[in-house]
Structures are given as structure tokens and as C-alpha cells.
């Protein structure tokens, strides 16, 4: 997927030159990422485990077969009308490739088991897993290929990697990783080298299988977790080196972490999009992004478990009002994964509210 710039080849979507027919999801997303107004605000709902519910399977059984995941994604898109297919299974699937384990549960995302690195000195003996040797990652690639066959270029397929800078939270555990970062720069650098190689290989394997863009999850690079000084010396450099080698546009997603003061530092990471938190003001984020980064977010996935239709309407409208004008905005949840406990009725209401409030020119533009 190549994102057109202001002079790109996609039809202009200004108020005076709006396409008559609805755009495909791919056209809609490309226009938005090119800082243009498509026919409506793109919507990336990120239902992941919900595919299991669609197919009447447990979460663990669902992820065991790529045909099921592809079918689940396709059914969810048909049901909810959002603008992407999402090949994400669960974060710990990468840890499986490194020799770790996954703990499944019936009511939520699978979680990483015990850290694979108990003693930091073990980092010296780690080697980069080969993508082709990991049955778990191969399942994701198969699911991606199946999605690509169905999508036929009309629906963007979003692949997922954990950033080399954030993966160690699962590899070592959070405490050990923070200590490593601050007190063992030699081992930290070695781990980044290994993780960067793995991340690039994994991202590009997904692109080869049909992913059109890569969501690079990097919560450790958020202001919630690291200082600016530390980020500039570590996470940003890792992102720059890694994203430069990924053969598709990338979104840096901070998984609900705050990022606003750091947006200027993200402009030259190579990311095209940033995933932003419900704890921050979308309008301020949009201004900080300066039309150089698109925004993905920021509906509160945890709070939406109890949203009434009125609350859905208000949340969607407020987000679009804050960030929709001029394109450069994709409405999504703020974490990159819709919680299992969110009712389908809420997700459908979000989709309907986007159809109502997200059509360009935006409703508020008529008023102004």
C-alpha cells in the first residue's frame, strides 16, 4: 500500500469534487492517510477475539486454525462495516516463536507465560527465531493470505508486530527490562539487535503474505512509560532503524499510552500513523501531528463495555469533530484490540454513528 501525498493519484475528495459512488475501504483509507477527505471517516474497529464468538468457538480453539481467523475477520467486517481486516492473533504469539508460552483464558486475550529470559546474561545466548520455523507465526501468515484472497485489494489488511523496544516486556518481564535498559546498556543493545532483526523479518513476511500496512505496537515508547531523554536515545532510534526496513506503511501504536508531548519526536521515525490514547485530547494531537502523521484512535475500549446508544453517538461525534477535518484520521479504539466484554450492539452503534457523523463534508462544516 503506497500512501499518496497531497499530489497523489487518488481522486480529490474536496467538497466540490466528491466521488459519487462510495469509495472502497482501501480508497477511503488511502485518501485519509494522504491527508485528504474521503467519502467518510474510515473506521478501524479492531475486534480480534470476537471472531471466536462469531464461529461459536473458544478463544483458544479459534486461534488454532488460520481458516477460522480469516473467516472470523471476514464475518466481523460484514457485520460491523469497518474498513480493515486485522490479522492480529495475540501479542504472546511472538513469544511462542522465541520459545515462550501463552496462557489462554475464556474471557480475554491470551497472555504471555513466564518470561523466557530469567537472567539477563541469557541474552548473550539468544538467537533470532526464523519465521519459517514457527508454527504459530505460520498460522498468522496463512490467515493473512486467506484474508488477502478475499479482500482483493479493496480492504486493507493490517498486520501486527511488537516493536523490538517493547517486546522485552514479555521476554524479560517489565521490572527486569527497566533495570536492563538503565543498568546494562551492553545487553540492552544486543537484545535490540536481535529483536530488530526478528521484527523486520516478521513484518515483511506478513507484507509478503498480503498485509498492506503494519501496526507497530510500542507502548514502552509512550510518555506513560519512558522519559523523553530515554526515548530519544533508545525507542526512537530502534523505531527509525526498524521501520525503515519494513516494506509497507507503518502505524506506531502506543496501546493506550500517552504520547502528546512526544509527537514532534515521532515525525521522523518513518511511521505514517500514530495510535493514540483516550487519555489525550484528539484536537491537540491533530495539531501536533501537523498533517505529517495520521491519527488512529481514540475511543475508550474499556469504558465502551457500558456505553448507551447516546454515549456511543457522543463519543464518535466528538472524536470526528476533534480530528476528522482534512483527513489524516481513522476512528478506532485506543488500544488496538476491542475487549471481549464489549457488546456487539455497541460496535454496531459505533459503525452507524460513523455513517451518520463521519460523512464528508462533516456535519459541523455545514454549520460553520
Amino acid at each position, binding site marked *: 500500500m503506497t500512501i499518496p501525498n497531497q499530489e497523489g493519484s487518488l481522486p480529490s475528495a474536496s467538497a466540490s469534487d466528491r466521488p459519487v459512488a462510495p469509495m472502497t475501504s482501501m480508497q477511503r483509507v488511502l485518501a485519509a492517510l494522504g491527508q485528504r477527505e474521503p467519502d467518510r471517516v474510515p473506521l478501524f474497529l479492531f475486534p480480534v477475539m470476537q471472531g471466536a464468538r462469531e464461529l461459536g468457538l473458544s478463544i483458544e480453539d479459534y486461534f488454532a486454525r488460520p481458516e477460522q481467523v480469516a473467516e472470523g475477520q471476514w464475518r466481523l467486517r460484514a457485520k460491523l462495516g469497518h474498513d480493515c481486516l486485522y490479522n492480529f492473533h495475540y501479542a504472546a504469539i511472538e513469544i511462542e516463536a522465541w520459545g515462550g508460552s501463552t496462557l489462554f483464558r475464556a*474471557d480475554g*486475550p491470551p497472555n504471555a507465560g513466564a518470561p523466557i529470559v530469567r537472567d539477563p546474561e541469557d541474552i548473550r545466548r539468544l538467537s533470532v527465531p526464523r519465521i519459517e520455523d514457527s508454527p504459530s507465526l505460520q498460522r498468522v501468515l496463512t490467515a493473512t493470505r486467506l484474508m488477502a484472497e478475499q479482500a482483493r485489494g479493496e480492504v486493507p489488511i493490517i498486520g501486527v508486530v511488537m516493536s523490538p523496544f517493547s517486546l522485552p516486556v514479555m521476554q524479560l518481564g517489565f521490572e527486569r527490562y*527497566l533495570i536492563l535498559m*538503565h543498568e546494562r546498556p551492553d545487553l540492552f543493545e544486543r537484545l535490540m539487535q536481535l529483536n530488530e532483526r526478528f521484527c523486520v523479518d516478521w513484518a515483511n513476511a506478513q507484507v509478503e503474505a498480503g498485509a498492506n500496512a503494519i501496526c507497530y505496537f510500542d507502548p514502552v515508547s509512550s510518555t506513560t512509560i519512558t*522519559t523523553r531523554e530515554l526515548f530519544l536515545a533508545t525507542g526512537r532510534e530502534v523505531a527509525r532503524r526498524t521501520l525503515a526496513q519494513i516494506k509497507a506503511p507503518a502505524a506506531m501504536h502506543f496501546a493506550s499510552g*500517552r504520547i502528546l508531548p512526544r509527537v514532534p519526536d515521532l515525525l521522523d521515525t518513518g511511521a505514517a500513523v500514530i495510535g493514540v490514547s483516550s*487519555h489525550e485530547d484528539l484536537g491537540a494531537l491533530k495539531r501536533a501531528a501537523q498533517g505529517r502523521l495520521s491519527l488512529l484512535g481514540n475511543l*475508550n475500549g*474499556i469504558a465502551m463495555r457500558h456505553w448507551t446508544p447516546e454515549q456511543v453517538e457522543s463519543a464518535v461525534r466528538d472524536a470526528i469533530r476533534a480530528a476528522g477535518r482534512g483527513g489524516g484520521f481513522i476512528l478506532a479504539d485506543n488500544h488496538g484490540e476491542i475487549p471481549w466484554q464489549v457488546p456487539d450492539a455497541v460496535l454496531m452503534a459505533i459503525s452507524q454513528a460513523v455513517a451518520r457523523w463521519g460523512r464528508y463534508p462533516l456535519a459541523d462544516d455545514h454549520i460553520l
Partner: protein
Amino acid sequence: MSSSDALLQALLTLNRVQAQELLAAARAEHSPLEVIEHLIRPALEELGHLWEGGDCALSQIYMSGRICEELLEDLLGEVLEDDPPAPENAPPRLAIAVLEDYHLLGKQIVRTVLRAAGYQVRDYGRQDVETLVELVRSDGIEVLLISTLMLPAALRVRVLIERLRAVTPNVRIVVGGAPYRFDDQLWREVGADAVGLSAGDILAILERLEVKP
């Protein structure tokens, strides 16, 4: 003791040497408990509040907490020399645990704040519901602090509380962790007695619950 702000700055920059010097200067004029109460405790509380407001990072909180743990070890060692601890068979009143997750960071930070405030807290580490209920019952815990990272674990606290109420009705539960920061009603939904949005909140919560060190 006005050097609490100076200690805060030393902690924010992870300057261990400066923090040690500030403590040594304070110790020359005050007792170990006064130094803890008026220097370390306010600095740790303020760190928590800064994080809650988005004005400092978790990496600073955790790494500065490690520095504080070292400082506390020395000071508490002096306290114990002067004032022997309560008999070992005195029932522990306060306990902390992580429910169903390997991320122990939040628990560790809260534990440091509690130690700095003079609380003795039993650390149960990572636990599932069944084991935790048994530990709380058998240890006679009065206040249980629960840290969670993922939403399902945060919701699972409801089951934990129901089972605890059945076997030890007077135990009070304080919850904390990311899911509670994204839904301000979630702590009530699961039946907790209070929620801490940052580590610094815990001392005010314990005061409200009338739990003294």
C-alpha cells in the same frame, strides 16, 4: 524538612548519589523515622501524582523506587536497632498481590510507598483467585491490595471479592492498575472498597480506611 523537593528532583533524574547525600544531611539532624516520614514518603507520593498527571514516566517511578528501597533498607535497619519489631506471631494486617499476571511492576511500586510510610505489608506476588482467598483467610489479612494489568483480571476481582466475603467478611479490598484508570466506575463494578489510580494514592486511601502503620 524542605529538601523533599530536592530529593524528588534527584529521584526524577535517577541520581542515586545525590539522593544519598540529601538523606545523609537530613539524617544528621533528624531521626530515621522522621527522615522517612518527611523526606522519602512525600517524594514518593509526589512521584505517583506526577505520573497520574502525565508529568513523569513509569521508568522514573520504578527506578527511583529502587533507589528509595535502598535508602529505606539503611534507615529501617537503624530503626530496628532502636525499636525491635513486633513479635513474629502478630497477625499481618496488610497484603498486596497481582492477580493472574506476570507484570509485577505496579505492585512493587506500591509496596515501596507503603514501606516508606511505615506499613508492614505481606507480599503475595502473583496469585490466582483460589490461592489468594486461602492466603487472606489463613493470614487474617484486614486490607488486601490487588494490582491488575488486563481487563479480564480486573473483572476477575469481582469473583475474588465474592469468595473473600464468604470466608472473611470484614476484609477490605483496594484495587489498582491500568483497567481502573480507563474506567472510573470499574472498581465499584467489581465491589472493591477503594481504587488507587497511582501509587501515591494508597496512603490517603489507607487513612480513609483508618488503617494505620
